[in-house]
């Protein structure tokens, strides 16, 4: 295997990474070992004045370590030895008898940046592809090749902690500002800037400004650790060991020199590398990478390029979708019932943009240009040029069908019509259309500005062209599209609603709902089912549940309490201030009126509550796989993580089932089904898997 080219010209040695048979450089152990050999040779060569590291790959320096190397780690001692070897090899760079320079024009992440940190000088470009950072924490590990130590010495303690704990990825300019690199030049100037930079180094070593961090870093590191730990606990609830391990490591090595600290780093790394959390996060990473490559259909079909989009409906979803597409500079035309709705929608969109300006993610000028691309109408004028229209009106089949027939009158025959329905069948919605092949479901999640998932739902007659176009457009908007089958509730809601139903049922049977919420959020869900129901809106939740009950019958029967809360007490949830909880601003307290609906009190044990809430989802998920609602268990898990916030450290819903053991899941479901009824009857897929000793995931 060839990992790089090597040449020497006028005393300048150039080690140019160019991994064979791939478009990406990665720092696998094989690459490291051949680097090791080359570094040893270099020491013997006479007349080398400087060594520079470059890359021959477009837009990439080194994307990181080989994740499959890490995924394969099972034994702590073996992991320790490997990472020590890596540290030893990279450390060699810093002991070379001549200056070293790394030229970064593309992604330089994780292990790649740890290599760069070993060099004397770092030169980067302003190219948008230049990305610098140590994102290891996202995979449940920490930088193990000296990154924690060497970064700290460049930026000071608190910045290093901030960057590593959040796994932040910086552009060239920001990296220069924080002192991660020595210079950041425009990409087009790189050639001669590099030359003059080298000349300068060779003339006299460039003196560097010594950065020791803030005053707090120097005099009160304890305080820095205290606040960092507090923030980590707030964010992770202690569920992610890597963040805590990083803090511990920094604390432990605070007064040690680099060499002694490296050993601690390697120990900490090896402990993390074999945790199930890390394996789970890596699994999700692979699923995400696989999803990025998905086009929506197997056949090779090119998507239609979409530049003018209309959004029908000015509610929360409608304006969220308008925001999303205006952000990627599409012309977006809103169709509303009244012009005042346009005012409201634009106001809410502006609020989201203001956040972007505040965080320096967009400039005021950019936002103004994006806003200028939004137009509005109460009629169907201006639709003849619209290439894709997204309907986001009330969940009412007749109203939607009527709208589509209007849209078909004014839109081009080839233009796509998409529905943001969360529960109605795409095939049925398109029944009366003249061109059902151009119709598809694009189900966005609320709040659209933040939720990464889009369910793409082809109907029976939807054309491949329509599918690939919807998938490509969602990706262009920075979202993760997952193609799912056309069943009631599609994928995410179909699995989620039984969980909410079951939780309400436990409340109906006498359990305190705030206790259920607490246990479920301890399990790792971002919020408990009752808080979620209030957030979504009890009206919306009820309507979706109703559609599901109508389709799936007894299995999804709406609990009598929800019926009472919504119909008799007419509670709507957070938006009206009252639901299962009373909401005052960000605070909430239990709504005793709702609690009074249940007379008897009964307490379940923790395991029973979790099993009833989560295993009912596992069972439904298995049914979805059986019915091929989604391509595979990995995508299903990604959908649940992105669509519901199912805890990533658990690797996904079905990964969780794997961790319990399918056999044990089946046993629990069977016993629940005897106590609670048929809704827990294990899916055939689960029974078969249990019999054959299979798991949803092949390994890890």
């Amino acid at each position, binding site marked *: 295997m060839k990992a790089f080219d090597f040449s020497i010209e006028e005393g300048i040695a150039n080690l140019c990474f160019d991994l064979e048979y791939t478009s990406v450089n990665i720092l696998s152990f094989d690459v490291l070992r051949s680097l090791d050999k080359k570094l040893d040779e270099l020491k013997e060569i006479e007349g080398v004045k400087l060594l520079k590291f470059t890359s021959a790959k477009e837009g990439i320096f080194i994307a990181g370590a080989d994740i499959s190397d890490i995924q394969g780690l099972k034994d702590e001692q073996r992991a320790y030895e490997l990472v020590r070897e890596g540290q030893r090899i990279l450390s060699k760079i810093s002991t070379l008898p001549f200056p070293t320079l790394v030229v970064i024009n593309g992604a330089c992440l994780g292990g790649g940046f740890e290599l760069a940190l070993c060099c004397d000088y770092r030169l980067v470009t302003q190219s948008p592809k230049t990305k610098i950072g140590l994102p290891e924490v996202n995979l449940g590990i920490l930088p193990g090749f000296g990154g924690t130590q060497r970064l700290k010495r460049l930026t000071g303690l608190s910045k290093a902690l901030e960057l590593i704990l959040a796994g932040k990825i910086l552009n060239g300019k920001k990296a220069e500002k924080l002192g991660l690199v020595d210079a950041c030049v425009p990409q087009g100037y790189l050639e001669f800037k590099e030359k003059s930079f080298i000349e300068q180094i060779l003339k006299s070593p460039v003196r560097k400004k010594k950065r020791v961090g803030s005053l707090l870093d120097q005099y009160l590191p304890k305080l820095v650790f205290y606040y960092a730990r507090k923030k980590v606990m707030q964010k992770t609830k202690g569920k992610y060991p890597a963040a805590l391990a990083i803090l511990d490591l920094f604390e432990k090595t605070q007064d040690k020199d680099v060499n002694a600290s490296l050993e601690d780093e390697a120990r900490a790394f090896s402990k993390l590398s074999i945790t199930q959390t890390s394996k789970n996060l890596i699994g999700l990473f692979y699923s995400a990478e696989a999803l990025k490559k998905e086009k929506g259909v197997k056949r090779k079909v090119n998507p239609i390029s979409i530049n003018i989009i209309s959004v029908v409906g000015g509610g929360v979803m409608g304006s969220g979708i308008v925001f999303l597409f205006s952000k990627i500079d599409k012309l977006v035309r809103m169709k509303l019932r009244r012009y005042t709705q346009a005012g409201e929608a634009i106001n809410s969109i502006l609020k989201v943009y203001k956040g972007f300006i505040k965080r320096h993610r967009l400039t005021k000028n950019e936002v103004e240009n994006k806003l200028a691309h939004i*137009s509005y109408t109460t009629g169907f004028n201006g639709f003849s040029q619209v290439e894709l229209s997204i309907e986001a009106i009330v969940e009412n089949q007749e109203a939607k069908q009527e709208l589509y027939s209007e849209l078909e009158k004014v839109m081009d025959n080839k233009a796509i019509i998409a529905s943001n329905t969360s529960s109605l069948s795409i095939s049925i919605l398109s029944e009366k259309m003249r061109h059902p092949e151009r119709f598809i479901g694009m189900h966005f999640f609320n709040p659209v500005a933040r939720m990464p998932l889009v369910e793409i739902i082809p109907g029976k007659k939807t054309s491949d062209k329509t599918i690939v176009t919807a998938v490509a457009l969602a990706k262009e908007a920075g979202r993760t599209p997952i193609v799912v089958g056309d069943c009631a509730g599609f994928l995410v809601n179909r699995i989620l609603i039984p969980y909410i139903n079951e939780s309400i049922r436990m409340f109906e049977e006498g359990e305190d709902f705030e206790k259920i919420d607490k246990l479920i959020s301890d399990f790792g869900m971002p919020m408990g089912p009752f808080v979620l129901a209030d957030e979504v809106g009890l009206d919306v939740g009820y309507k979706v549940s109703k559609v599901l009950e109508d389709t799936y019958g007894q299995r999804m029967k709406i609990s009598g309490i929800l019926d009472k809360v919504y119909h008799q007490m007419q509670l709507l949830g957070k938006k009206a201030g009252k639901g299962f909880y009373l909401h005052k601003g960000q605070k909430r307290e239990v709504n005793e009126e709702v609690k009074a609906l249940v007379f008897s009190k009964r307490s379940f044990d923790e395991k029973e509550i979790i099993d009833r809430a989560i295993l009912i989802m596992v069972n439904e998920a298995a049914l979805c796989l059986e019915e091929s609602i989604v391509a595979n268990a990995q995508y299903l898990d990604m959908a649940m993580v992105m669509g519901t916030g199912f805890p990533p450290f658990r690797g996904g819903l079905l990964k969780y089932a794997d961790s319990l053991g399918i056999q044990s899941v089946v046993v629990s479901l069977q016993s629940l089904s005897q106590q609670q009824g048929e809704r827990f009857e294990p899916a055939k897929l689960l029974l078969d898997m249990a019999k054959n000793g299979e798991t949803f995931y092949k390994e890890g």
Partner: protein
Amino acid sequence: MKERIAIIDGLRTPIAKAGGKLKEYQAEKLGAFIVQELVLRVGIAFKDYDEVIMGNVSQPGHAANVARVIALQAGFPDKTIAYTVHRNCASGMESITSAASKILAGDGEIFLSGGVESMSNVPLMYGEQMTELFAALFIAKSISEKLYTLTQFRPRYLKPIIGLMQGLKDPVSGLMMGSTAEILAQDFGISRKEQDEFALMSHKKAEDSIKAGVFKDEIAPIVYAHSKVMEADDGVRFGQNMEALGKLRPFFDRKNGTVTAGNSSQISDAAAAVVLMSEKKAKAMGLEPLGYLSHFAYAGLDPKRMGMGPAFATAKLFQKHRLHLKDIDLIEMNEAFAVQALANIRAFESDSYAKEHLNRTKALGCIDESILNVNGGAVAMGHPVGMTGTRLVIHTLKELRRRGKNRGLATLCIGGGQGASLILEVE
């Protein structure tokens, strides 16, 4: 003209009083809004347009060549060329006639023309002395030199030059536009009362037309203050009366003057746009145009009497194309000032004025006031200078259609001593 130019459709924003509802929209934003709306409604793809031409008077410093900024913000692709035209108050007509000339010359087929003005956003400027001080500070080398320069500062240097006032001043004669109107009042002996009566009629006609929904098919509602919606011109005073008008003090000649804020056009913000192509092209594309531009003329005259522009330009136009006032079914004459419109009415019907000034043996003709500014004019609705020309074209055509008539005259006076007249037809 060799061939008529088809005006496929036109659209405008409501006209807002300056410093009011649309003040948050800089000129390019107003322009982009209306241009995007029109292009989407007309249905010809952005990429199919050859050029965008916009008229604008107080061209914003932050958006030089505002037409290009408008084009890009509205959604035109990078390849679409665009330029800005300036013929003072006729800028919004100049954009249309420039496009017409280009079409006839074979220099492009499909054009987007319009006019835009944000009089709310005309900047204040530092005076000469302050500007010099800044320059001196800039070149001062040492701190002490800078400090010394600063000691030269006097508070009166901060008195701003109001860009808007500067823009409304004729640079050659040094007269404010309102003062040129006072000269017309003297030339023709037009009293304050006559002017106020004319102003009152303008408001009344506009009020009735708004109530009848006449402007609905030319106005695109626009969101302002981030959540409110403006659907109609807000300068029109419902229930305006002579008493209220009579209370206002003359603005330009405080002692003897007759021209007040009440009988002058208002300063305002708005944008308008039209889509243009040759009649042949429109036929080939199977389009049914709103109407046609068949002839136009610009004329020059004494800058001190710039208000007479309509008489001069119309005379030139009639002469050249052998037209008569009786051939005209509808007249839209911009009301820069009530007195200016009245003076033109007098001049049109005067044989002696025709002989003396218009190089004609006989008068242009007596204007039938029942076909003049039938839905009110700039005194009531406002005069966003760069936009008005386009508005007159759109409104004339839409009103001709409403009346089932064929031929209209849109004419306006131009600061600096010019006039513009356009013949518009619907069949």
